[in-house]
């Protein structure tokens, strides 16, 4: 067998090689920085060195005089176009280019457009900004102090840095349970500020054609249609003349959902110069100014019985949103889906309160595969369960077994109103323990401990709520979260599927073809998946929150079934029987009782385009369209076990093993599912052990490069060991739940629990760098969101 021999792909679900790979392995992907248009100019952003400062003046004359510079845009320029401020996805406003003040280090102050990228960079140095430095709000826990500087004095009547309060659950009932519980534990738990840091930074090429009035923007965006609508609303450009193209994207992870000032500047630059303008940020801009993730200061409490029954969970959260509230959240959920902090357990009561505050830091909070704050919720509850285990002297796996929801309890309405669709949690954790050899690991741990060697075993169990969402409950800036899907089958039986979600590596060109293939009985190679170009695809809210499979995947199944039903009618005309006399065998409509008389989709497609007489009221061709409004979210789950070895003399941690048993319902392509899990597990190693964006007292960002913001390499990651259970989602057309963010959600607590288990410390905050581990062993852990002094 030669290396290039073709394997016939399965007609439907199953492992198959990706259809998108041939271009990538040849280096023929088209990412935004690969886009080159005739006459294209390059933009660069001048950014604030200060975290908080008044702008006294900006002198752009020297920059404008640079021979290669074609335009210099400031907040003043934009103010004239009413574009100096733009709405955020959280109904706040964000400065496109600063006018009065700068409010975080790295904030956009001016935009230069030049003939080449090197000249644009040179010209930045020619711009003189006179700043009056102001005291900065850096410690989120001080943001609401009475004497804290007011950051958002651009907003009428603002006297403090408070953004919102939000609560869920039953405060009184929860308090009752805490009062009469046998055991209560409480712990302050920080989920530090981290960053999705996709390998490709954010960027855009904006091309405004003065003659046709058409604006085309190639963008690193996970939500091209939402961007199109927003540009129309905000810039006053007619929406039918705006085309957003999301080409190949080098990773998104939630960092490419929002509209960044650089994109808007590129659009304005193109309008002003009459030429295409490319802006691609460098890595420090990416880390310092684009959507960070987490930054939740949480106080968790558990009320339990001495036998280990968890009765209630209570959480208070201080959420650091940075200088502008730029989180992408469904409107009614300012704290996202943090409400799933009740975890995978059956509780008598639960309550949480979240307070959002402004600080002099970059805007964001929802990104890095968080499933809208579910990473924070899961980390909180899984850390607290281990704190309880520590307090009771109980094995953490056993404690979870005692409290996990039972299969007969599904669908399960949680104390905060979430209806978990399906799950087989006990079996899942059991399987993870089998794969890990849990009992043997505990025995080994005891042996090693006796020799002074520190080995740790960490357990984490999570339930996610993904696939936002039902339009009545979920919208972003008023745009409902339902997705369209269009399917056309050509005369020769080849199909084109147009979807609204945009892949950044998840393999949509393959998996969505497999969904159609499964419904129509044709080869996935005969289904072309079109995505990313708003001129060619139906409306939808984009790819994030693991919603592609739950929402667009459902839409795809539904639209394929519509095509199949239309095909039934055409087949009935071909076979001269009633449609009710036809059955489907997976690839043909055939006459019941006479199976030799049947027609494949390909045959039906040709007939549908032919002169075949069709019944009254039935249109020809073989197309269908649908908009899928999900009835509920879907609830993937996971049981994870991590094994670490800690060097007590240095605090260094080596992740020896990681076992992950995921349940994402029906698995369209197990190879792709496994890849998604692998990637998320690496995220957990990163966040647990090394990733953090900290700030010093002046608001200087200490995580602004890959020398400081450390990403895990092949050396820190073990060989992942995967297993699965499959509990289909009862409401999803193909029973699938989505998996893109599962591993990122479930892995940080598994790694942290393992390290703390090794050193027998009740709690210490991430990242558990060697210094933090050593300090934790000494009983003096560090506070990780601020500079180490």
């Amino acid at each position, binding site marked *: 067998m030669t290396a290039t021999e073709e394997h016939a792909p399965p007609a439907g679900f199953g492992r198959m090689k990706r259809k998108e790979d041939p271009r990538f392995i*040849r280096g023929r992907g088209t990412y935004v920085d690969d886009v080159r248009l005739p006459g294209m100019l390059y933009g660069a952003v001048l950014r604030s060195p200060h975290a908080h400062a008044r702008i006294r003046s900006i002198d752009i004359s020297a920059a404008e005089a640079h021979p290669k510079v074609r335009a210099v845009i400031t907040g003043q320029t934009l103010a004239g176009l009413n574009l100096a401020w733009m709405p955020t996805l959280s109904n706040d406003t964000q400065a496109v280019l600063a006018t009065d003040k700068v409010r975080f280090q790295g904030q956009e102050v001016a935009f230069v457009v030049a003939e080449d990228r090197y000249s644009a960079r040179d010209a930045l140095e020619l711009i003189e900004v006179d700043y009056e430095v102001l005291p900065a709000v850096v410690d989120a826990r001080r943001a609401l102090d009475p004497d804290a500087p007011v950051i958002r004095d651009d907003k009428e009547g603002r006297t403090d840095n408070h953004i919102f309060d939000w609560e869920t659950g039953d405060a009184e009932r929860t308090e009752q349970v805490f009062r009469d519980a046998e055991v209560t534990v409480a712990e302050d738990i920080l989920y530090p500020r981290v960053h999705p840091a996709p390998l490709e930074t954010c960027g855009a090429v904006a091309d405004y054609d003065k003659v046709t009035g058409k604006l085309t923007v190639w963008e690193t965006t996970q939500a091209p249609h939402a961007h199109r609508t927003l540009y129309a609303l905000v810039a006053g450009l007619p929406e039918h003349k705006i085309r957003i193209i999301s080409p*190949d994207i080098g990773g998104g992870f939630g960092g490419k959902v929002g509209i960044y000032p650089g994109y808007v500047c590129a659009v304005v630059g193109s309008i002003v110069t009459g030429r295409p303008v490319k802006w691609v940020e460098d890595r420090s801009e990416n880390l310092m100014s684009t959507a960070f993730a987490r930054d939740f200061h949480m106080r968790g409490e558990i009320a339990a019985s001495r036998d280990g029954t968890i009765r209630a969970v209570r959480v208070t959260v201080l959420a650091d949103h940075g200088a502008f509230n730029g989180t992408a959240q469904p409107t009614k959920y300012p704290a996202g889906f943090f409400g799933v902090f009740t975890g995978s357990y059956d509780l008598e009561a639960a309550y949480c309160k979240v307070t959002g505050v402004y600080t002099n830091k970059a805007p964001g909070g929802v990104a890095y595969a968080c499933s809208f704050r579910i990473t924070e919720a899961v980390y909180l509850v899984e850390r607290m369960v281990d704190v309880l285990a520590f307090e009771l002297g109980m094995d953490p796996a056993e404690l979870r077994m005692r409290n996990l929801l039972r299969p007969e309890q599904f669908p399960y309405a949680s104390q905060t109103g979430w209806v978990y669709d399906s799950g087989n949690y006990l079996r899942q954790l059991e399987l993870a323990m089998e794969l890990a050899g849990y009992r043997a690991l505990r025995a080994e741990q005891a042996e090693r401990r006796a020799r002074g060697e520190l080995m740790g075993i960490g357990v984490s169990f999570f339930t996610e709520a993904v696939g936002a969402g039902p339009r009545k409950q979920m919208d972003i800036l008023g745009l409902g979260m339902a997705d369209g899907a269009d399917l056309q089958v050509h005369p020769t039986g080849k199909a084109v599927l147009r979807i609204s979600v945009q892949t950044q590596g998840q*393999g949509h060109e393959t998996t969505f073809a497999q969904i159609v293939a499964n419904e129509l009985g044709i080869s996935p190679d005969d289904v072309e998946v079109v995505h990313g170009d708003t001129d060619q695809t139906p409306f939808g809210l984009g790819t994030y929150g693991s919603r592609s499979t739950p929402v667009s995947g459902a839409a795809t199944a539904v639209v394929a079934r519509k095509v199949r039903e239309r095909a039934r009618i055409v087949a009935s005309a071909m076979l001269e029987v009633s449609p009710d006399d036809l059955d489907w065998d997976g690839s043909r409509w055939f006459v019941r009782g006479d199976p030799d008389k049947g027609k494949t989709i390909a045959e039906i497609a040709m007939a549908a385009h032919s002169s075949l007489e069709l019944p009254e009221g039935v249109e020809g061709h073989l197309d269908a369209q649908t908009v899928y409004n999900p009835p509920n979210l879907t609830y993937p789950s996971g049981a994870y076990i991590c094994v670490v070895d800690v060097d007590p003399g240095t605090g260094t941690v080596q992740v020896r093993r990681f076992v992950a048993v995921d349940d994402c319902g029906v698995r369209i392509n197990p190879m792709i599912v*496994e890849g998604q899990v692998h990637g998320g597990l690496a995220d957990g190693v990163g966040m647990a052990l090394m990733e953090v964006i900290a700030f010093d007292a002046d608001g200087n960002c200490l995580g602004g490069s890959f020398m400081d913001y450390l990403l895990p390499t*092949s050396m820190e990651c073990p060989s992942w060991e995967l297993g699965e259970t499959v509990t289909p989602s009862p409401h999803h057309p193909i029973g699938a739940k989505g998996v893109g963010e599962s591993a990122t959600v479930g892995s940080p607590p598994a790694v942290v629990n393992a390290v703390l288990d090794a050193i027998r410390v009740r709690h210490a905050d991430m990242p558990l760098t060697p210094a933090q581990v050593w300090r934790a062993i000494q009983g003096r852990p560090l506070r990780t969101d601020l500079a180490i002094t």
Partner: protein
Amino acid sequence: MRITVTVNDAEYTREVEPRLLLIHFLRDELGLTGSHWGCDTSNCGACVVWLDGKPVKSCTVLAAMADGRAVRTVEGLERDGRLDPVQQGFMECHGLQCGFCTPGMMMTARWLLDHNPDPAEAEIREAISGQVCRCTGYENIVRSVRWAAEHPAEVTA
């Protein structure tokens, strides 16, 4: 200044500024956009190409330094339309997701296999330890390289 660089066996002579980085020369001057860039501090390895037969981070080399030298990029991995086993391996074993780190990973993998045709998993992990992937968690990259080691269709060095 004028430089002449051999890239994927073809000679290119261009007028460039001395400060032009090799990665920009390849991408912007020669239109070989298969090599990527992802950071400012020589950490991520998206830009890895071969310079005189050795993998280097082309964001940290001046085009001027490549004058008179030979460069190989991902576009030069396939020969006469035949994919390199490394390229085939990445497809067989799902070694890529977004594809952004992939060209750099494959160039390092090809060099590794040319010098160590049957590497252990630990050796593969070490060889790519200077290159970041945010999608795959490295597992399938390692498997892809093992696949190429086990299916050496032809010698490409």
